[in-house]
């Protein structure tokens, strides 16, 4: 697997946090995903070798946690909260707005590969519903107008690249 030196360094460091190597499974998967953008097929074997596990132990973990993905996604990841407090204030409409803006459906990569939109469960910011997590950043009170504004921003940033 082709990981950046900094990633490899972080990997070796994080393993030292635990008396049992296996505990580093989630941290390693996060680090690889941050580096590569997703978890490529060789991840299971690589992590297993690193942590002295069997590959199935890693696959079981990857598929249990929704944040881990085994396929590439768009350049930006838009996660719209689906759960009750957000839905009560229009979370579904917010999601549809994003879908319209990028001409795509939740769970899919938009044409051109700019974004992937996902519905996710409660992001623990229900007081500022509806909320949206774009990559690492939380956006609050995202009604349709704000969804449009955020989309425009993403599109503008894409143009600059």
């Amino acid at each position, binding site marked *: 697997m082709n990981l950046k030196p900094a990633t490899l360094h972080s990997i070796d460091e994080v393993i030292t946090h635990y008396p049992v190597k296996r505990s580093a499974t989630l941290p390693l998967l996060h680090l690889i995903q941050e580096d590569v953008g997703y978890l490529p097929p060789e991840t*299971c074997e690589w992590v297993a070798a690193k942590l002295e596990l*069997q*590959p*199935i*132990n890693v*696959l*079981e973990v990857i598929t*249990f946690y929704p944040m881990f993905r085994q396929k590439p996604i768009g350049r930006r990841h838009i996660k719209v909260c689906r759960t009750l407090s957000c839905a009560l204030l229009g979370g579904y409409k917010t999601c549809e707005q994003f879908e319209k803006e990028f001409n795509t459906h939740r769970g899919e990569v938009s044409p051109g590969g700019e974004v992937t939109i996902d519905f996710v469960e409660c992001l623990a910011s229900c007081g500022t519903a509806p909320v949206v997590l774009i990559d690492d950043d939380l956006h609050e009170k995202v009604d349709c107008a704000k969804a449009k504004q955020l989309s425009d921003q993403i599109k503008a940033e894409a143009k600059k690249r």
Partner: protein
Amino acid sequence: MIAPPKPDLVTVNIDGKEIAVPKGTNVIEAARLVNVDVPHYCYHPKLTIVGNCRMCLIEMGMPAVDPATKAPIIDPVTGKPKINWIPRPQIGCGTNVSPGLHVKTTSPMVKDAREGVMEFLLINHPLDCPICDQAGECKLQEQSTGYGRGYSRFVEQKNVKPKRTQLGPRVTLDDERCILCSRCIRFSKEIAKDDVLGFVDRGSYSTLTCFPGKQLANNYSLNTVDICPVGALTSTDFRFKMRVWFLKQTNSIDTETSVGANTVVWSREGQIYRLTPRRNDDVNDTWMPDSGRELFKSVMSADRLAATTHLDARVAQAAELFNLNASAGSIAVVGSGRSSVEEQFLTKKLAAALKASTQLVSRVGQGDQLLISADRNPNVRGALVTGLISKLPKIGDAPAASRSANGDAAVPIRTGGLTDLAASIDAGKVKVVVSIGEDLVAAGLTAAQLAKVSVVYLGTHANTSSAAAKIVFPTLSVFEKNGTFVNQQFRLQKFAKAVPGPQGATDDLIVLAKLTAAASSAAMASDLGSLWKLISAEVPAFATTSYAQLPETGILIDATPFAALPFVEGETLHYKPAAPAVALTP
């Protein structure tokens, strides 16, 4: 005499019946002891307890005690100790007995809980039992009639999962039938030490998978089929071949190695369909190797020996040969560690009558630390105990082919032990060799040595020795006769006849008895009952043993006379060698 120490016993009450059970017993096992069935799926006595199926829910309570005096509180109405029942059901598999524990397994709460679990297990399960291979052996089918609600309230779409996945060379998986009990995963991890199975995805979409690119190919893979409580894992070989309820079950022993795993032979109308393990907590628990399950296939093979002449004619022919070589040492008997105790006893009698030397063919391979031991003969201990041999046969040389073999290749089995015999043949001393099912060439004699002697061959299958033999007595396989073996623990275990032998084959005991009679001109018993009278009288270790009373799980016999011998076995399940195993040098 000192009384044996009493195990720590705990008295519990199950459905009103009091019983004392050892500490550490769980409620399912305790209930079993009073013939109360607590239905369960994920619990398996030989695997870790995970408590995930929730089928074994029971109602449980403890005697109430006065907080001040700690004295039990008596219910004024019944005059019996008052029981504080826990208001929610508990799992029987994960609940260990404690003094005074009260359990109800048929209360409304328990019935309701079971009905609920059954319904949940069935909503996403295909309802096509008539075409399922597990029909008749399915715990789900069994228990849904016993504990289910009997009709479906589920009108939604069932989950769709992969059908008919080949998990490995011998095991097929139907994920839609899987109830996610994780027995197969735990078995692979904990017992077979081959951690390749796991669940992917989550919740009701969890799916059993073998890691892509890997296979469930270890030599114990079929045990997952045995323990799968439903028809999710099936034997690719046995799948849909035969309905189990048509099959007859006969207890037997795995003859692959000196472990002596207990088995069941499943047959119908003289044909064997499969071998499965039989529980013996002191030997193989509930497991057996896949390789042992294949053994029945050679029963029907084309190279089975069959006699074309009458048995007595061949016995007379042999008697003539024996007469011509009557001087001590001109006949050699090659006994077998694959023969039963009774056969070995008669082999010894025959050798004595012929004033023949005796030797045993050794078969030594690599043990797998589970149920394959290094000694690939099932009954070398029997030959020692009966006195057929007094020391262990020499270990043969590694077969030529294996010397260049790479590290991963299975270590080949070394067959040998006949170096003394070879020398005697070369010296011209031995003129006749009586072989009890052993191929002399495979055991290390050269073709030239074989050509120098007259061979009398007793055996089941054709080989170089039977081809070269002057007289051949086709005999029976382990599935076609009764007898006993002594395994590596010095446990005497019996096997029984499952199917009749082929036309033209004779029970080994009859052949041996007739040959012995011919050599000594005195009649010799060949039925097990009479033979065991002789055996008990002559063999000290069997002095108090009788075949008829031998329990299905065998008995340990006195091993002290043999304690100093350099046995080849290393550690396996329920067996620790007295001395470190003899190392095999390549």
